[in-house]
């Protein structure tokens, strides 16, 4: 089975790595985008330092909104385990990514054992007709909406009404919500940057802060991409900064606008794109003079790529450490079906050995 290609031609893995390395060495403005496990992230960032590259998540926009909540405002958050055991009111804030629908179903199918009432009520904030994760046992969530108003505007209205202020458009079912909050011991708001804009995340934190003046409440952060958040964590410990950091001047510089890799490609700033993701995704329209190196789980070369190298999927083809929003931390997972496919980290390190004299620090 072929695992490496230069252009459309099958190549030895060493030759492909050497070719990728030479492209990287001659690039003036390389950019990396990835969707990978912790080890892959570490190797990619270590290579980015050597190459002077900027790096970002493969689907960076939602992660950037989530990151900005932490870098700009801060937050009150709660662990998923505590949510399950303690949340007597669960509020779903906006559309949640599908990967978290299982957790929501589980919350609907259980009661909080550390809460005196052993009951759980569900609310959902968002415009009418918003798609909802299914709740178990035919349970229903009470909708809190201001018609078609945006999530941020609805949350602002909710916050204002909670403070007893007048609002131009009242939130539907507000009295039910107020009653539930008054009786609640630990309401938890489920949030994600998946569909919520930054202002909505900020407004939600304002509401949670208001609630905490007199009683308890918190937010359960459910990242748009678990790999994305895992990469943000590894990037923070390695460089001090989250993703959208670049090494153009040798030292890491965090700039969520300048190092937005999708923007850098679209604007023609990047002359090389290293894309690392086991999942085959729609590639952004390639610029004519940009070299593309793709590490993905594939049996054939990626169209337009100068180099394609096959990698395995974390936790499927090889053991891995990944972020799990079910535990709220990093988790070790075993390969489901150990295959011969190398990990992303292995291939990145191989490219590095061809490009640089010294081995990567990780």
């Amino acid at each position, binding site marked *: 089975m072929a695992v490496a290609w230069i252009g459309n031609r099958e190549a030895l893995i060493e030759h492909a790595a050497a070719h990728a390395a030479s492209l990287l060495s001659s690039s003036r403005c390389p950019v990396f985008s990835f969707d990978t496990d912790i080890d892959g992230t570490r190797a990619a960032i270590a290579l980015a330092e050597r190459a002077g590259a900027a790096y970002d998540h493969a689907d960076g926009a939602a992660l950037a909104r989530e990151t900005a909540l932490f870098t700009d405002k*801060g937050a009150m958050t709660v662990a998923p385990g505590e949510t*399950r055991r303690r949340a007597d009111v669960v509020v779903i804030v906006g559309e949640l990514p599908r990967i978290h629908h299982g957790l929501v179903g589980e919350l609907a199918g259980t009661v909080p054992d550390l809460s005196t009432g052993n009951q759980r009520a569900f609310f959902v904030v968002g415009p009418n007709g918003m798609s909802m994760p299914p709740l178990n046992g035919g349970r229903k969530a009470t909708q809190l909406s201001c018609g078609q108003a945006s999530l941020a505007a609805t949350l602002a209205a909710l916050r204002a009404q909670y403070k007893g202020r007048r609002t131009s458009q009242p939130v539907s079912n507000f009295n039910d919500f107020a009653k539930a909050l008054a009786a609640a011991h630990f309401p938890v708001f489920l949030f994600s940057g998946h569909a919520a804009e930054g202002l909505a995340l900020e407004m939600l934190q304002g509401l949670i802060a208001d609630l905490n003046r007199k009683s308890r409440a918190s937010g359960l952060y459910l990242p748009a991409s678990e790999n994305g958040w895992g990469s943000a964590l590894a990037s923070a410990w390695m460089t001090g900064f989250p993703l959208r950091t670049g090494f153009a001047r040798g030292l890491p510089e*965090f700039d969520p606008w300048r190092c937005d890799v999708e923007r850098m490609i679209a604007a023609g700033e990047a002359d090389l794109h290293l894309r690392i993701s086991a999942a085959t995704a729609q590639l952004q329209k390639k610029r004519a003079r940009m070299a593309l190196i793709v590490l993905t789980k594939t049996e054939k070369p990626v169209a337009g790529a100068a180099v394609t190298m096959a990698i395995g999927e974390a936790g499927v083809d090889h053991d891995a450490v990944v972020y799990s929003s079910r535990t709220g931390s990093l988790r070790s997972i075993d390969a489901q079906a150990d295959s011969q496919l190398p990990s992303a980290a292995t291939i990145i390190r191989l490219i590095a050995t061809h490009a640089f004299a010294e081995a990567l620090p990780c």
Partner: protein
Amino acid sequence: MLTKIAGGDIIDPVNGRLDKGDLWIKDDKIVPAPAGGAADRTIEASGCIVMAGAIDIHSHIGGGNVNTARLLLPEQHAAHQLRPAMTPLSNAGWSTFQTGCLYAKMGFTTVVEPAMSPGAALHTHLELADIPIIDKATLAILGNDDFLLSMIRDDAPQTMIEDYVAWTVASTRALGVKVINAGAAAAFKENVRTFSLDDVVPSYGVSSRKIVKTLQAAVDNLGLPHPLHVHCNNLGSPGSADTAAATIAAADGLPLHLAHLQFYGYGTEGKRGFSSAAARLAELVNATPEVTIDIGQVMFGQTVTVSSDVMRQFSARGSAHPKKTVIHDGDGNGGGIVPYSYGKDFYGTMQWAIGLELFLLIDDPWRVFFTTDHPNGAPFTAYPALFELLMSREARTEMAAGLSRSALALSTLAAIDREYTFEEIAIMTRAAPAKLLGLTDRGHLGAGATADVAVYRRDRSIAKMLGEAAYVFKDGDLVVQDGEIIHYRWGKALRLKPPVDKAMVRRLEDYHQQRYGLSLDWFNFPDSAIAREQPFGEVPCRT
């Protein structure tokens, strides 16, 4: 490889060696002078002092809360060292990579991360594994977790509680156990806002004191070398000296370590109701031989407070500078990140003076430990300046001249003449930490010891001398020369491996299935998950 460190002033209190002479290293160990041996490498150390590598027992260098602080404060650590990278990622401010390099340059070779949340053990160890050069270790946090509190409430046998503590230490690869504001994080989830030693966690009816005493006994019975590491209640509040005094009294003959005592050295005198109780606490420590403490010295400037004392951090939100915080309710403790700037005003001066008073009024350097509770009192990069303050009365007087007079008037600092000697520094930062942590292979320069050695060239400036070591050896590798990293390597995380009771594992499996809907596998990890060769080094329990 045989190395001779020639003609230095050797300061090795453990082996009673305080003379000018040679120190020999063979591979990774210190060896006696070989008969007629010719060194493969000679390090000229005349005009230098030679000590064992330093050990930091309490510095928040990695793990969930520390990393959240990085996320919260990109402006705090915007890299400022615009110089060519000598080592990988060495220009990354406040990164794991920089942490190892900066510690090594000061001659520190072992550092303990004192607040590992058991659920984030894998994350913590991955961060520590990316800290180069030095060895690391962790303390696992217990005392706000439902499993323990339920056992105490239900009068579970002490042996069962010990099985749980042993499992936690073994599965999280910890070197000891820490309790942080025992019971308060659990009580905070039930909307309790202040919590003291004899307050009870509502749903459990268990007092903070009971939690501390239960864990203290468990640690002792299990033979864990490091005594229970206690972060007391009421951190930072005026009058917290009473809480610290009560906790010291509660040691009751069994070993107990109190962390960052400076943050509890506060009385209620003066017109602001905030005064130094350092002299009183120092006297109590002096009179209580089973108690050890570290200081958590405050130094001036911008820093960030990172703590698993979530109740305290929540109440400190108003003082955040810049104005942003993270407050997390975790499975056990959770934590809070509150950036803070220590000014040279009344309060900042008071805290600074109280820390120094404690350092200088506690007589026995074997029982007082050198910390800033990094980054809570100050980043560890302030250590050289702090050494200077301890070793030079003149430096203290000079510094005090620019500080709040009304605060200094409420402290005894100006009246204290004591200056730490190099021998006392060697005890406080080498010999005593090794003893406290059960690390017999380090903290001294005797034959057979691990070759962790720091050589400092004498200088009129103590800060310069101790801030930039002339030479540092880690496991016999020469890693620092003239204050620069010259060799990159990877240390280990030191851990205990107490035997794990199978019945306890089954109990925990059931508990996790029932309460979290997850098997215990979700929280366990193999050593291979840490992508380094030999990520751990085992330290034996007391027998």
